[in-house]
């Protein structure tokens, strides 16, 4: 791709081969596209003690997606996939809101916490069920999670009795629509979840175990990793993340809509994970990449709004992004397009002197 010249290029190459380079580049490019259309795009104003601005709202509206995508990353890292997150979002929101709406005093802190607890426990149970089907019964993840994807929205509508439950609870409003220390509170929630996930997966061996299970579950089991338990845990974690996202979404709108809450969020989350450079085949993951991937999607949506492209083309753009990202990740495509030499062995693209340690991440997936 690049012309190999002097030693000065080596630093550039090291930079471009960092696994976060392309996601960040896409994000920056998307953000910059906005500037000609909205000159004060990067401006952040202080109003009523809150920070306002396009960047803040991108993170605010992207928060649920980031949460779901972080959970999804770990599931995908084990070679699985979780289609049920959208339904889990709906169930959690429905349970929490219907509990709060039954309270005499909707602003009572204890009631709100209990309601959130109920919602999250239900979410984790959904994850346990998914994990049980995948790890114990050996059902393909796509199919196992399809069950809750189909039935879950029915359950959510059952809980809300087919209505959209609206609530009026100040403490509950905080988690999705409130501000704290001048910033949207949901940013802190997301930051906490991401920090805990990164700490657990990168400071302990847990991340390695997850990758090992994703690389080869049977081999991992044989070397003594409890791969089934890890898989179940990962699905529970993913559902928990989806549950928190469900709280956020229902809190932001102060309503639970069993039919539309979190609709298609599973697809966006998978897309975020893929953009972030995690292979769908499992065995390797990048939480940072996923967060950036989710931001890319949210920025894309915001950009489409701000530059005046009709919003309905949003989905067409997303489809184009999916295709481009997947094609770029496909070793066969890269071999065909970028390197005529690498025909027989698609795993070795036509770049001559690639340092072994900096080999592009996608090749691991083969």
């Amino acid at each position, binding site marked *: 791709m690049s012309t190999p010249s002097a030693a000065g290029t080596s630093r550039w190459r090291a930079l471009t081969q960092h696994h976060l380079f392309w996601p960040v580049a896409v994000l920056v490019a998307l953000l910059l596209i906005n500037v000609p259309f909205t000159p004060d795009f990067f401006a952040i104003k202080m109003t009523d003690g809150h920070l306002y601005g396009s960047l803040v709202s991108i993170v605010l509206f992207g928060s649920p997606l980031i949460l779901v995508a972080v959970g999804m990353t770990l599931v995908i890292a084990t070679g699985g*996939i979780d289609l049920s997150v959208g339904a889990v979002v709906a169930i959690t929101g429905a349970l929490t809101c219907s509990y709060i709406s039954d309270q005499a005093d909707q602003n009572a802190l204890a009631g709100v916490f209990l309601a959130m607890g109920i919602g999250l426990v239900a979410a984790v149970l959904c994850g346990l069920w998914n994990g049980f*089907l995948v790890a114990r*019964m*050996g*059902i*393909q993840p*796509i*199919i*196992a999670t*399809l*069950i*809750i*994807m*189909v*039935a*879950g*929205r*029915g*359950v959510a*509508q*059952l809980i809300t009795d*087919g209505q959209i439950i609206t609530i009026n609870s100040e403490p509950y409003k905080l988690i999705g629509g409130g501000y704290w220390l001048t910033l949207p509170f949901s940013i802190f929630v997301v930051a906490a979840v991401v920090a805990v996930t990164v700490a657990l997966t990168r400071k302990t061996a847990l991340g390695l175990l997850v990758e090992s299970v994703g690389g080869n579950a049977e081999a991992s089991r044989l070397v003594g990793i409890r791969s089934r338990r890890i898989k179940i845990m990962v699905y529970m974690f993913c559902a928990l993340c989806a549950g928190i996202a469900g709280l956020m979404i229902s809190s932001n709108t102060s309503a639970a809509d*069993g039919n539309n809450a979190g609709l298609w969020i599973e*697809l966006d989350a*998978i*897309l975020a994970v*893929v953009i972030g450079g995690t292979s*769908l085949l499992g065995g390797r993951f990048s939480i940072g990449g996923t967060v950036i991937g989710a931001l890319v999607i949210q920025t894309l949506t915001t950009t489409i709004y701000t530059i005046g492209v*009709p919003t*309905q*083309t*949003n*989905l*067409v*753009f*997303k*489809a*184009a992004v*999916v*295709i481009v990202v*997947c*094609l770029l*990740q*496909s*070793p*066969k*495509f890269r071999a*065909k397009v970028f390197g005529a030499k690498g025909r027989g062995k698609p795993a070795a693209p036509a770049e001559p002197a690639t340092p072994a340690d900096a080999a592009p991440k996608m090749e691991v997936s083969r």
Partner: protein
Amino acid sequence: MSATTKTPTAPEGRTASGPSAVTRLLGDRRLPVLVTAALFLAMYVTGLSRYQNYGFADSQVFLNLFIDNGYLLVAAVGATFVIMSGGIDLSVGSLIGFTTMFTAWLVERQGLPLIVVVPLALGVGAFGGFLMGYVIHNFEIQPFIVTLAGLFLFRGLCLVISKESISISDSTVSSLAQTRVPLGLGDLSIGALVALAVLALAFYVLHYTRFGRRVYAIGGNEQSALLMGLPLGGTKIAVYTVSGFCSALAGLLFMLYIQSGDPLHAVGMELDAIAAVVIGGTLLTGGSGYVIGTLFGVLVLGLIKSIIQFEGTLSSWWTKIATGVLLCAFILIQRTMTARKQT
């Protein structure tokens, strides 16, 4: 039953030397279809006994299952081909929605005659399927993610055509939609007849042609199929083309059934189609199943809807829950069967 089966022979580990009748039955690949057929029958009989006085026994109620679910049957037949080959197609619902929108737009806004629009819509659907199959095969990207992109794309194209629904007042469409073909016991709509014809054709293709055998072979074991010299790529691409064509045809039938185009038509119908295929006993890993099972799968789903209608007090979301529960049950049945076969 459980007491007699499990104790004497090996629980899961090895194949018993002299398989008992129950093991043989469990290993029979026709079992899921039979279970679904029995389930359908049981549900129908329950319906008969419960709602006898409300006209459930009327044979037209049975025929209405075909009229009301003809489009789903066509979509599910397409999905059967894909799933039989070991793939999955998530773009079905979007493609159906897109077809309704596309035809409504061409007929109403552009004033094209239906006779031109229909082949055009079918061509677009088939071409969409072909493209997805091409990408899946040539670039070795998972079918799941490629058809996901298809889902986004076609739903997006729906919205690009128009954000509002377009109702169709074309006289040809309404006369086609109202035509009823009398049978001895009642009558069927054009859509239902087309669906049955598609089913018959798919039955023939899957079970009596070379192409059908290739689909089974690839679903059974792609590597072996390749080593046997089967044209892997051509078959795979053809399977997605068939699915795209069926989705477009289902879209036309849906358009006929509902007489409008709407960007939100058939959201999530790919799940109904996949559920129908699974409940019909086709293995999701591919290579085993019968298209006739898909018919029973669709009929079971349709019957759930009619029973909920007859029940009156139950709300529509019970359909989703019941579908999920059935899906779960049949996946578990399949799982126990494949576990026995593999070991």
